[in-house]
């Protein structure tokens, strides 16, 4: 039995409605309890800001394309490297760090749970291998279905149950957590070097539209009772004028689940552009947030960009090729048979580029114009908009109008006229930030009842104590202190153990991978369907029996069972 007592903590725990109370937190064997014995180890939080462990609900840290980003970028590996020290392994890289680099830096920032944003089912084993080497965060994998042939066939047949059965079998086989759609239909078209330009355009050969894929998958997701909703990277990412596609997509979404959103729209910054060319691109955040503010069934995340050099990586292969044709830098592409695509190119976001400045403003506008912080979560689509180590700066910008004004004064002169950021007075408070960086994520991912995102009795003791005294720091003026405070916790506690102290990792990690097992009735199971098996054996290049990820790839896997179809 191990016991720990965190005393004098200034707790913000939005899920339990606690906002800045000074309290003690008792921990036994990794979970939060009423009280502990007087033999418990004691940490004095000294009235510092204490939050549930940070949760990133959309990041790219593990798997085939992330590793290829590293593989092709020795220049980035040189940009961030540390020696082996104590319990810490060598790390390399700044915007695509090695797995240990990701894990240590997230932990230093108080993050204890991550959702990998895009896992190709065929390459799932790779993602899980890297999860094991990202030891300080609990992991989940969004599983890509955007170009899945069997799913598209079911969509064409208007057979939601069959689509659900395919998803259920696949999630179980690849130990995935939820449904990810990246440019639905577009990744299949990219198999021929094509893309789709609207949600009503049919996918070549399959004769289904993105709109049909999205709506079918939303219903399949709820039929399977998955803890998370469909997680969507909309069509037309990064194209001027794409906000209309985004609005059309949002209009497709019914409100089907009382406990959470029905659609999670990711990195919406990249999907909120007006204009028709790069010369007249402008912000359409007012239209996007008006839609979201009226639709509780939608949660989005920011996809904030920050000015720096970084790497874009996504399953959206055609988008990456378009970007490559603009940037003329190196370009990788990796299409995955019967399932999805992917592309990678490095980019530099510069204040000298009007387009980049407008993108930067759009991300912040989305957060500031969305009324409920539960509906616009904070992230950068790491590393696409910026590496996650930039989150503290994003927090600073959201909390301080003065900080924003100072930054705005340094931007390209065309930015102000094509955005609304200059006019926005809102300054977010500590509670808003707690929602946007952990509580909102826990709710959106459906992991509150797994003991994540809050500090209630029975919750997993994942806790971040930041060296910030909320009673003496005015974030509007002292935003530098806010940024510094969120960069490095005093303590990061993972499952009741102090894993990071003032930015130093002090123990070996022992993370868990959450995955979903939806119980599907015998007569609907696709692994009993001779036609499904035949097509699998004929068109995949691995045998169906070799496709599932063995349990041993998840040394501390935690299965979340759902009673599908009930």
């Amino acid at each position, binding site marked *: 039995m191990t016991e720990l007592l965190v005393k004098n903590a200034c707790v913000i725990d939005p899920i339990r409605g606690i906002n800045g109370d000074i309290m003690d937190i008792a921990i036994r064997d990794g979970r939060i309890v009423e009280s502990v014995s007087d033999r418990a180890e004691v940490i004095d939080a000294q009235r510092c800001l204490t939050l549930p462990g940070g949760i990133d609900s959309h990041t790219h840290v593990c798997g085939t394309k992330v*590793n290829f980003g*590293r593989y092709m970028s020795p220049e980035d*590996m040189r940009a961030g490297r540390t020696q082996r020290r104590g319990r810490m392994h060598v790390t390399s890289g700044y915007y695509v760090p090695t797995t240990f680099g990701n894990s240590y830096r997230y932990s230093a920032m108080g993050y204890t749970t991550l959702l990998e944003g895009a896992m190709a089912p065929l390459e799932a084993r790779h993602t899980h*291998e890297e999860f094991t080497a990202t030891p300080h965060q609990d992991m989940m994998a969004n599983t890509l279905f955007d170009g899945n042939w069997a799913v598209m066939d079911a969509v064409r047949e208007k057979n939601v149950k069959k689509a659900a059965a395919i998803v259920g079998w696949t999630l179980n086989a690849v130990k995935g957590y939820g449904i990810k759609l990246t440019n639905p239909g577009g990744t299949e078209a990219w*198999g021929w070097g094509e893309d789709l330009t609207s949600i009503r355009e049919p996918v070549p050969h399959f004769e289904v539209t993105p709109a049909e894929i999205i709506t079918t998958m939303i219903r399949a997701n709820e039929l399977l009772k998955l803890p998370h909703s469909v997680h969507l990277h909309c069509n037309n990412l990064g194209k001027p004028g794409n906000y209309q596609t985004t609005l059309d997509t949002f209009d497709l979404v019914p409100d089907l689940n009382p406990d959470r959103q029905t659609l999670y729209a990711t990195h919406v910054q990249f999907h909120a552009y007006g204009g028709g060319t790069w010369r007249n691109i402008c912000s359409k955040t007012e239209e996007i947030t008006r839609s979201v503010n009226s639709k509780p069934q939608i949660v989005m995340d920011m996809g904030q960009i920050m000015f720096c050099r970084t790497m874009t990586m996504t399953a959206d292969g055609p988008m990456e090729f378009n970007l490559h044709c603009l940037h003329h830098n190196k370009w990788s592409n990796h299409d995955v*048979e019967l399932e999805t695509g992917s592309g990678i190119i490095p980019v530099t976001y510069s204040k000298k580029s009007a387009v980049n400045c407008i993108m930067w403003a759009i991300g912040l506008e989305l957060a500031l114009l969305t009324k409920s912080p539960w509906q616009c979560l904070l992230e950068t689509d790491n590393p696409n908009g910026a590496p996650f180590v930039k989150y503290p700066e994003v927090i600073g910008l959201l909390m301080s109008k003065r900080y924003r004004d100072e930054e705005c004064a340094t931007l390209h002169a065309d930015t102000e006229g094509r955005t609304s950021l200059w006019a926005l007075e809102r300054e977010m408070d500590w509670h808003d930030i707690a929602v946007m960086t952990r509580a909102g994520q826990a709710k959106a991912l459906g992991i509150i009842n797994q003991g994540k995102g809050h500090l209630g009795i029975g919750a997993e003791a994942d806790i971040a104590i930041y060296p910030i005294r909320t009673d003496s720091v005015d974030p509007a003026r002292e935003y530098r202190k806010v940024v510094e405070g969120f960069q490095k916790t005093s303590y990061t506690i993972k499952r009741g153990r102090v894993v990071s102290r003032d930015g130093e990792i002090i123990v070996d990690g022992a993370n868990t991978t959450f995955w979903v097992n939806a119980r599907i009735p015998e007569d609907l199971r696709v692994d009993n369907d001779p036609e499904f098996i035949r097509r699998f054996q004929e*068109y995949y*290049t691995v045998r169906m029996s070799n496709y599932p990820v063995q349990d041993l790839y998840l040394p501390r896997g935690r299965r979340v069972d759902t009673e599908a179809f009930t």
Partner: protein
Amino acid sequence: MILNDVVCPFCGCLCDDLELEVEGDRVVRVQNGCSLAEATFMNDTRLPAPIRRTTTGWEKISYDEAIKETADILKDADRPLLYGWSSTHGEAQSVGVHIAERIGAVIDNTSTVCHGPSILAIQEVGHPGCTLGQVKNRADVIIYWGCNPIEAHPRHMSRYTTFATGFFVPDAQRERTVIVVDTRRNDTANIADEFLQMEPGGDYAVLSALRAIVRGKESIIPKKVAGISKEQLIRVANICKNAKFGAIFFGLGLTMSRGKYKNVRNAIELTDELSRHTKFVISPMRGHGNVYGSNEVFTWMTGYPFAVDFARGIAFYNPGETTAVDILRRGECDAALIVASDPGANFPRVAAAHLAKIPTVLIDPHVNATTALSRIHIPCTAAGIDAAGTAYRMDGVPIRMKKVIERGYPDDAEILKKIYDRLNGEMGS
């Protein structure tokens, strides 16, 4: 006993549809496999126990003794090299990286003498590729450049390309155009629709000519380029531009001939150029069964796919300096641990000769040319035969190799873990 859907660990194709008949600790029949697979499973003669060189020959030693002496050699070395890794599973590779980090070693894999130049090219311009199933289901144009799959990857053509039935290519033999570029008329060239016979060292010029034609600059092409006629080059460029889906596969003929990584870069840039007209992809034909896995494991752990030097405490990478052949050639290395490979047979003579001068330990199931250069040889399981583990196919698809028989050897990951634990124990934290 009959085992189905067995993975062959031999080459980068990692065919996973073999049927094996097993009797006790022997494989007695291999179905669906190529001749290389059959040899891998059936001619599997092992070194029975660890051996150490004496002044007159070899003596048998225990595993404990061998492990202790290996740890001592590594601990006492100033510039140790850990090399090989491509024929074992990721689990062993991962322990290898931890050891290298612990003792400040150079760790390198066999890419250094095969597709290392391809990696350098990819680091310059990227890699537009795909999984092999994309090619199988879609490609109507296949190009083999500087490789001979019929000999080296015997089932590549029947599983993924020329003869493979695909969803959009139901009549593969008729619907796929096969183009071979090589300096010699090899077996693969004999079944090609177009064979471009090139003068040795002409790759860069031929690739440049094709790029120029694709860009509409055919007027600047001379009558012949490296022995290939302008007419044929134009014809081939047009086949590529008119393809629905084209796939280039290249081998050591491109990476190891004059121009090296610049050849590969040029081939990638041709692919990029063609991608502006139609769908085109390119992929290296990786040799060893899990050489790509060693690149993957090294990359997520250290940031670099090969040639990683931990001497400065951080991971440092500079191919040409931190590559195994160069460390050995310069006589810099004072101890070597070789795992799952045979540099004795594949390295330049001067590099191999240096291995014989320094304490070299070989961990490999089989006696090979490196045994003759080693001080100690520790036999272990062979991944995919008597050990299970992860391997990455040449296109990045991770596959779990199976254990099909038990032969009583320890797993190399286990041996390495014991060496690592010993080093940790003796070197403190």
